[in-house]
């Protein structure tokens, strides 16, 4: 090492100095997207303190820095799972079949906002939003149509659903039964992460306490009955979209995870009973090395938390299994075809980061929902990277990079500092309540915007290499959800209500009410209600009545 110190000094004083004297570098200080200073050059000196065995280890072994599985993509590729769903159940069924025919492996369901907030399509508050940002689901009848011809024992389904996740999971269980697939064979994920909804994204319904109870009802039900279900996907992605940087994203995700695990323990669940089915979601921004380092640091830091803080024994509890995806806020509406390149980079980050499932956004998402063509290109992007680029032949290929290992350490350290701060405040619920998390995210959001406004942070097509508007984009190819969705959906709801047996609805809903009073696990009661075609609005209505609705404060 001394030899390297000497020769580095010599290089700096001779070869480097000569050039710097003549032509200075582009910037005085270089930084990652989240503000970590970046040196000109990293050398073996930067890795001097790293103990390979304890810091990096081997794939599939503690601390999992190099990957959660022993063979990683040499065994099988990541799950290509692009977010989709819009309009009516029929529209979405058609799109899902198309994507599966094109080689997509897992479904990722997008629900419209009324569904995400537990309102039926005929609720006055739903006006204008039915089928808009996802598929409209009012009753089991819609879920039956969505999965028509899609066997639930062959396909895994991830549902971006939170406040009413119990209802959608219950419907999925019921569809499986109708297809002859028992619940123990179902595969998939409920996002079910209500804490991040309070902080970002905003599709919460009930106050924190009953909200967390519902989260844990799924965790407990699946641990008992659906062994291959990912019960709770703890997400940092949405903090990132709200403006957080990579370090905050990781820290707040882990702080949420800690909160859920503590709450589950308070309920009497052993950590190794449920932790193996927790999964995680982190976004992809634009700084490739920082994102890769973030995924690596996440695995290591999480494994340490599970071991040291929670004394988990089952190695599966240590696995930080990552679903990643393009952050939509990195995409722009100016010269939008260029977004395909950004999305390619997102997928590359996920692959080099050793993630388990990847969503690639579509180039036209800055305008509207993706068209069939743009959805196919997004899928092809992953397929090209998987099959043509030699990325999947060896595990964790950036390991040992002086720079990437240094960044991995730095991100772990900075995220740990945040966790310490949150612990000192009394935990994440406290840090949300007192506005700390909101203020931190808002600070980063403002800083990013200022850098874009000043031109310091270049966004090609937006603040550099700008084209005149008329040459920029043709909007005629942009997809729009057809206007009749809302009427079609309301008509279908009326038909369903006319055909079902009303006394069954009354009975199942009053049993649900009773179960709430007794603080039982609500899953079995919700399954019974959805099987009689009780609607999401009716079921959530019972809960709204019992628990009331939450309003989060607004910070600017």
């Amino acid at each position, binding site marked *: 090492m001394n030899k390297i110190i000497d020769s580095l000094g010599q290089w700096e004083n001779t070869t480097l100095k000569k050039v710097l004297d003549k032509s200075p570098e582009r910037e005085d200080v270089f930084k990652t997207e989240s503000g970590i200073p970046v040196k000109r050059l990293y050398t073996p000196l930067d890795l001097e303190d790293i103990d390979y065995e304890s810091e990096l280890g081997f794939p599939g072994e503690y601390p999992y820095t190099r990957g959660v599985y022993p063979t990683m993509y040499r065994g099988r590729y990541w799950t290509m799972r692009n977010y989709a769903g819009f309009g009516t159940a029929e529209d979405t069924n058609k799109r899902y079949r198309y994507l599966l025919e094109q080689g997509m492996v897992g479904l990722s369901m997008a629900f419209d*906002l*009324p569904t995400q907030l537990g309102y039926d399509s005929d609720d006055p508050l739903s*006006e*204008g939003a039915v089928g808009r940002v996802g598929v409209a689901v009012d009753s089991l009848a819609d879920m039956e149509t969505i999965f028509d011809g899609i066997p639930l024992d062959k396909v895994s389904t991830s549902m971006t659903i939170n406040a009413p996740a119990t209802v959608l999971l219950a419907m999925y269980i019921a569809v499986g039964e109708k297809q002859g697939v028992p619940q123990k064979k179902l595969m998939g994920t409920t996002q079910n992460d209500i804490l991040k909804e309070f902080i970002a994204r905003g599709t919460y319904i009930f106050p924190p306490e009953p909200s967390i109870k519902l989260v844990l009802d799924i965790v407990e039900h699946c641990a008992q009955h659906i062994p291959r279900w990912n019960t709770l996907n703890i997400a940092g992605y949405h903090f990132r979209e*709200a403006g957080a940087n990579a370090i905050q994203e990781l820290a707040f995700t882990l702080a949420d995870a800690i909160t859920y695990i503590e709450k589950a323990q308070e309920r009497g669940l052993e950590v190794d009973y449920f932790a193996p089915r927790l999964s995680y979601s982190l976004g992809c921004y634009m700084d490739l090395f920082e994102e890769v380092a973030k995924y690596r640091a996440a695995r290591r830091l999480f494994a340490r938390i599970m071991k040291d803080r929670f004394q988990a024994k089952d190695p599966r509890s240590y696995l930080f299994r990552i679903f990643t995806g393009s952050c939509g806020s990195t995409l*722009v*509406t100016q010269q939008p075809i260029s977004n395909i390149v950004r999305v390619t980079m997102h997928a590359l980050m996920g692959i080099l980061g050793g993630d388990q499932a990847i969503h690639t956004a579509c180039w036209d998402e800055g305008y509207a929902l993706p068209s069939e063509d743009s959805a196919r290109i997004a899928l092809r992007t992953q397929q090209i990277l998987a099959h043509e680029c030699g990325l999947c032949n060896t595990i964790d290929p950036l390991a040992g990079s002086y720079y990437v290992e240094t960044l991995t350490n730095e991100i772990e350290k900075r995220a740990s500092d945040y966790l310490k701060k949150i612990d000192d405040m009394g935990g994440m619920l406290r840090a949300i309540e007192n506005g700390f998390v909101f203020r931190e995210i808002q600070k980063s959001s403002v800083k990013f915007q200022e850098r874009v406004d000043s031109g310091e942070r270049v966004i090609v097509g*937006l603040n550099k290499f700008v084209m005149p508007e008329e040459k920029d984009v043709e*909007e005629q190819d942009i997809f729009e959800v057809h206007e009749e969705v809302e009427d079609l959906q309301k008509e279908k709801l009326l038909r369903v209500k006319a055909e079902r047996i009303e006394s069954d609805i009354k009975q199942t809903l009053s049993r649900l009410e009773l179960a709430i009073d007794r603080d039982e696990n609500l899953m079995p009661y919700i399954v019974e209600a959805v099987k009689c075609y009780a609607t999401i609005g009716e079921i959530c209505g019972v809960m709204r009545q019992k628990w009331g609705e939450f309003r989060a404060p607004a910070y*600017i």
Partner: protein
Amino acid sequence: MSNVGKRKIRVLIAKVGLDGHDRGAKIVAHNLRNAGMEVIYTGIRQTVNQAINAAIQEDVDVLGLSFLSGDHMVLVPKVMQGLKEKGRQDVKVLVGGIILKRHIPELIKMGVQKVFLPGTPPNEIVRYIQQNTGRS
């Protein structure tokens, strides 16, 4: 010090509808406040009536509506109608967010003053408001 005693520009930024993405709304609110305006942000998931009532109660000069989920062509007409019914067409309505360009002429026809698309520098919005409210 000619501004002494002069009322500051008052702005209500509102998220109407069920969408909860408010990064853009908050950035705009932050910039307007930094420019010296009185800014109130409603928070997410406001009904049309809540937004109109807040605008009237707070006696704002400008009502800024932020949309991301494609429901603007349904909700904006309701806001405009509501302001008209309350006789408050003097409130200048600005719309921002994910809006297709082909919707802009229709929104303007409804009485919207101006539509700001993604990528608009916040300062451009500040300048627009300063120039069009007759105050600074």
